[in-house]
């Protein structure tokens, strides 16, 4: 009986956990300042380790910007990202080149009901702008109950 309760609790709790991605306690300050200025300091679990390695190897051409960091910070951030990377296993990444969180299967599945016109909304501008809709994104809370833009909260 106890085990049944526990399983039931787990089943109820799991979806909630899936929307909670707080930054790990050992997040280095360099990750927050260097990677969190132009976009949210993304939770490292959103990409696999191989994808993070590719991101870190091409920082001089980071999408359209030069996001180079010094050698010490690069090592510190890389170690942190790979330690907390998502478990993508050995499956080939769907994140593209350069890897984009918004192209990962999880992101696509979670956002498949969002119409194109919302992505174009000037308040949102880009799929990189998590905080535009997810009010508590900086705290790692991505629950669909916390969507900031009322017309998106359906």
């Amino acid at each position, binding site marked *: 009986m106890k085990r049944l309760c526990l399983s039931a609790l787990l089943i109820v709790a799991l979806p909630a956990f899936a929307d909670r991605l707080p930054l790990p306690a050992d997040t280095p300050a360099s990750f927050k300042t260097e990677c969190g200025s132009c*976009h949210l300091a993304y939770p490292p679990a959103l990409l696999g380790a191989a994808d993070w390695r590719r991101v870190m190897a091409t920082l001089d051409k980071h*999408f359209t910007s030069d996001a180079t960091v010094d050698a010490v910070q690069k090592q510190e951030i890389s170690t942190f990202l790979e330690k907390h990377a998502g478990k993508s296993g050995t499956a080939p990444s769907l994140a593209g080149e350069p890897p984009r969180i918004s192209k990962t299967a999880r992101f696509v599945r979670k956002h498949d009901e969002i119409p194109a016109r919302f992505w174009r909304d000037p308040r949102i*501008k880009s799929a*990189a702008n998590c905080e535009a809709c997810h009010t508590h994104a900086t705290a790692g809370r991505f629950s669909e109950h916390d969507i900031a833009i009322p017309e998106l909260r359906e």
Partner: protein
Amino acid sequence: MKALSALCLLLASLAAQAETPQQIRQAYSAEAAGQQAGFTASAKRGEAFFRQRFNQNDKMPACTSCHTDQPVNAGQHAITGKAIRPLAVSANAERFSDPAKVEKWFGRNCKEVVGRACTPGEKADFVAYMSEVR
């Protein structure tokens, strides 16, 4: 004792980092004066620079592309959409208080928007404008 030394060290390092916009402007002005005798920072020139369209970058032709044409207002990153706190010191007291941070962002943004490194004189003017604008 150990804790006390640590505290002293911490305070010393904080004092080394925290500067006022005036000190940062003066450092850039001194550097500029070394290249151009009698240089004085000008908020007016800084404003003109802030509003100039450099057209080196489709998405970010000018400083105003992300920071809006009113530095007292919050801006928005032209590509990612992330909110950017105001540049003007009168609206955001944290601005121009950490020389390393100021130099890092002049480095990145001048390269990306102006298409080259900014001169010490341009930086001094820019800091002067951002310190005075209301």
